[in-house]
């Protein structure tokens, strides 16, 4: 995950998450998986929105959903919360902690 959200501005939120599926993008359950990843970061109601209408924290959460959707075994975080305000950062840290517990992902973050 990058310091910036790096969402495709010309794709809806849901397609942006599908990008994270890599080679499995063409599989039949791609959309369902992307939707469940959005539920995980609490943005399932934004699936049809353009990235431009999201706030900074919401964009970063979409980027997180994109990173998680393929159930990766290693996640590298390059200060993904650096550009967020204090309150959003705290809620994102909680979100990351919860996801870490739920998925048992092993992480190598630059974000302490």
């Amino acid at each position, binding site marked *: 995950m990058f310091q910036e959200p790096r969402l495709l501005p*010309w794709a809806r939120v849901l397609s942006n998450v599908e990008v994270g599926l890599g080679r499995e993008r063409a599989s039949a359950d791609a959309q369902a998986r992307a939707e469940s990843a959005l539920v995980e970061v609490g943005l399932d109601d934004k699936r049809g929105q353009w990235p431009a209408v999201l706030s900074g924290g919401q964009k970063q959460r979409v980027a997180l959903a994109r990173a998680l959707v393929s159930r990766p075994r290693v996640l590298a975080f390059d200060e993904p919360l650096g550009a967020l305000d204090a309150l959003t950062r705290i809620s994102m840290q909680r979100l990351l902690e919860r996801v870490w517990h739920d998925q048992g992902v092993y992480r190598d973050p630059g974000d302490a």
Partner: protein
Amino acid sequence: MPARVLPAPSDVALAGWKLLLSGELARNIWVSFWRASVGFLIGGGIGFAFGLANGLSQLSSKLTDTTLQMVRNIPHLALIPLVILWFGIDESAKLFLVALGVFFPIYLNTLHGIRTVDPQLIEMGRIYGMTDGELFRRVIFPGALPSIFVGVRFALGIMWLTLIVAETIAASSGLGYMAMQAREFMLIDVVVLSHPDLRLARKARRQRLARAGAADAVLASGLPETLRIEMQEALRFLCPDAEAVDRADFVKQARLSRRDADALLRGLSLTIRGLRKSFGDNEVLRGIDLHIPAGQFVAIVGRSGCGKSTLLRLIAGLRPIDGRHHQLRRGHARRKTSA
């Protein structure tokens, strides 16, 4: 002001109305429109194709870009005598001039658009395993579209300019022809009626020239070099044995059974020895040693600009690593359940 110099707007409107009633205006507009569209499609299509090829392929760019940039500086209207020699005075000469005129704005802007797609998005696409085709379809092409449309807008202006000038030389129909006929018979009101688009086209041409100058400056200032080649080199450094990091290739090249490979990939650990990286004279990383066993949570802390992001980019394979005495291995380790 005498009507010989500039007729009153009412006279122009009246002339327009008369020509409209006689059907002459509509017929000439239609003929010009047809020539303009066909010429635009031919020239724009070729310009678009060259723009794509030269934006995506270094080889193609080296072979043709310089030549095209050279030809671009020849005013295409100055070629009219030659074009008459080559194509005669029938339709093909006019189509050729229009096609030549619209070729360059579309070519330049397509090329510029593709080369200036946000490199961060390209990096993102690579990380998430997009193939070249997907990267083009989902990232590069949509990113270049705004610039391509700018090219189309400039080309539309040039299209009318070229056509009307071309029609003043040798034609028996079209807006330019109508203006010429009117001049012959001193029908100033008809000349003015035929030419508002001509004046607009001149304005567009001036803008295009200003813009083309700006585009050249950007192209010359050393755009991010071939990111793709850089990434391929990085991959080769990271996995000297494997050409690709695709799972199927991994199984094949490492001569493992699928189950062994899965176990290996699941318990992923990371070992780095003596990692170096400099940008020019600025040495950012000097001999980094790092071992992360599987299941470990590691935080990298440091002041701004100390190379944290660089380290992560090197690990992700987005940047080539300096020197050959480094070792960066994705090794095998027993899986730990994290809690």
